[in-house]
């Protein structure tokens, strides 16, 4: 499958004074892909998103969105973009359905198109019965869904989602993921920033792991895990005082050992076998858990830090 490239970044850099928020990153996104930027707060994800949307000017490097430079063709580029910002910026002076229609007007779309489209999107966002509610009467999850519905009013080819589920409860997150998954199926290119590994694993075909403005690794979630982590992880808790010193006694078990303040991680192909070795040495962890490696482990491996502090 040879799909056209819709976003192409080359040596993209953004500096605010002394601080380099985005440091010389390059990536390409083909049409229809779901592409993730995974990294902790302050990694430069949102800044990258803003440059793609043409609302932040790059310091150097090149960036094209469907062949256009967002800096010189801002309104044209944004006509094909849907944007879900990190913080909802719904229009609280308008009602739910009015939010969709007015936003569509910003794109210069006619009301004859917007009226049925708004109803369709309310349906999609499961907000039909809230059409005439005030925005501040909606729950956090509903507001998020409305923001996503709003971003789709111009039938964008590319949807930018900046931390789409941060601050939502698990149920609201799953509803949202379901909606995003349907969009992906319908061929919309998704660009997604997140610091949730499960979100990245669920939604992204391919992702870049960013830290301090740099790309640390790139690939599909499965490839990244295979390349940068073991198949399984054994998590042990010995209590906060013992965790720090137990490392020496665990030497030689598994492929690699990571000591965190609250637990010890042993990376091994076979987690159960590793646990047997631990007990064979006479060590008695308070709790033990064998799980598959995740992107969290990849990030820890690449940066020495965890994603969510």
């Amino acid at each position, binding site marked *: 499958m040879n799909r056209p490239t819709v976003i192409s970044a080359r040596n993209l850099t953004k500096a605010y004074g002394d601080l380099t928020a985005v440091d010389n990153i390059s990536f390409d996104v083909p049409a229809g892909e779901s592409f993730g930027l995974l990294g902790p707060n302050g990694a430069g994800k949102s800044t990258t998103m803003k440059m793609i949307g*043409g609302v932040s000017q790059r310091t150097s490097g090149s960036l094209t969105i469907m062949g256009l430079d967002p800096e010189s063709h801002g*309104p044209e580029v*944004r006509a094909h*973009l849907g944007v879900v910002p990190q913080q909802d*910026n719904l229009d609280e002076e308008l009602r739910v359905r009015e939010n969709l229609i*007015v936003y569509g007007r*910003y*794109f*210069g779309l006619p009301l004859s198109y917007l009226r049925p489209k708004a109803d369709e999107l309310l349906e999609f966002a499961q907000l039909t019965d809230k059409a005439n509610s005030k925005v501040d009467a909606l729950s956090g999850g509903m507001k998020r869904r409305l923001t996503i519905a709003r971003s789709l009013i111009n039938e964008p080819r590319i949807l930018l989602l900046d931390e789409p589920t941060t601050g939502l409860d698990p149920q609201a997150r799953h509803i949202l993921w379901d909606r995003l998954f349907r969009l992906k199926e319908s061929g919309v290119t998704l660009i997604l920033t997140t610091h949730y590994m499960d979100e990245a694993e669920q939604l992204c075909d391919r992702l870049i792991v960013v830290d301090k403005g740099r790309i640390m690794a790139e690939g599909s979630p499965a490839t990244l895990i295979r390349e940068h982590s073991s198949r399984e992880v054994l998590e042990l808790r010995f209590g906060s005082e013992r965790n720090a010193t137990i490392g020496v006694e665990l030497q030689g078990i598994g492929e690699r050992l990571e000591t965190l303040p609250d637990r010890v991680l042993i990376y091994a192909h076979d987690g159960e076998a590793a646990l047997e070795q631990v007990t064979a040495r006479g060590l008695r962890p308070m709790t033990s858990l064998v799980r598959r490696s995740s992107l969290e482990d990849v990030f820890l491996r690449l940066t020495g830090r965890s994603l969510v502090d």
Partner: protein
Amino acid sequence: MSVLTGGHSATDVARERKFGSLYSRNAKAVVGRGLMAAKSSTWLVMVSGFFEPVLFLLAMGVGMGSIVGTVQGPGGEEISYAAYIAPALLAVSAMNGAIYDSTWNVFFKMNFAKLYQGMLYTSLGPLDVAIGEIFLALLRGLLYATGFTAVMGVMGLLTSWWAILVIPASVLIAFGFASFGMGITSFMKTFQQMDWINFFLLPMFLFSATFYPLSVYPQVIQWFIQAMPLWHGVELLRQISVGSFSPATAIHVGYYVVMIALGIMLTTGRLRQLFLK
């Protein structure tokens, strides 16, 4: 556009491109949004902004006017004190309407509602937003001015058919204040800073030859007041209200034209700096 479209020089194309990231000819969407939001919002605030100058007119014009009697109008003729201050208060009314929308409303939308952020993530450019918001402020200025002119008519303070021109002139005044007000507001980050606007407006309202002629001041103070925008509005409307024009009329109008142009440049530049950095 293609090479075949005649009369499209290279500079035109370049200018279009330069303008392209600022403006998408869709300020009407911003206006539409404002009208839709107005439906459900602050009618009370709007009405209070209209009544303030009316109350001044009653208290000062009718009340004080009864001891002042007649004064000399712009053309040298004797007019009632109420007829003297009414056009000045109309200028204040237009200013208030424009300032309310372009400062407090804009301040809130910019810093709390994040409204412009959302708008600029669409096809709208900062110039669309600036024009739309300023137009809304003008609309409010027009409403206030029309209402106040009606009050003047009812009170018998309009003596010339020229007086109907005070309405478009009020819109001009509102335009000047709205375009500048929005630009200035973009620098404000806190409520305390917003208070500076009142700190500037109140003395301008009281001392811009609103209630007595400029000639009571020493020369230096006169110059200072003549540099302020409201004085030009007061003088302009006062001249129109009695149909007495002079070369100064053109200067007053010119003052506002320049103020509008500078204000729009400032506002667009600031919106770009703030949201497209």
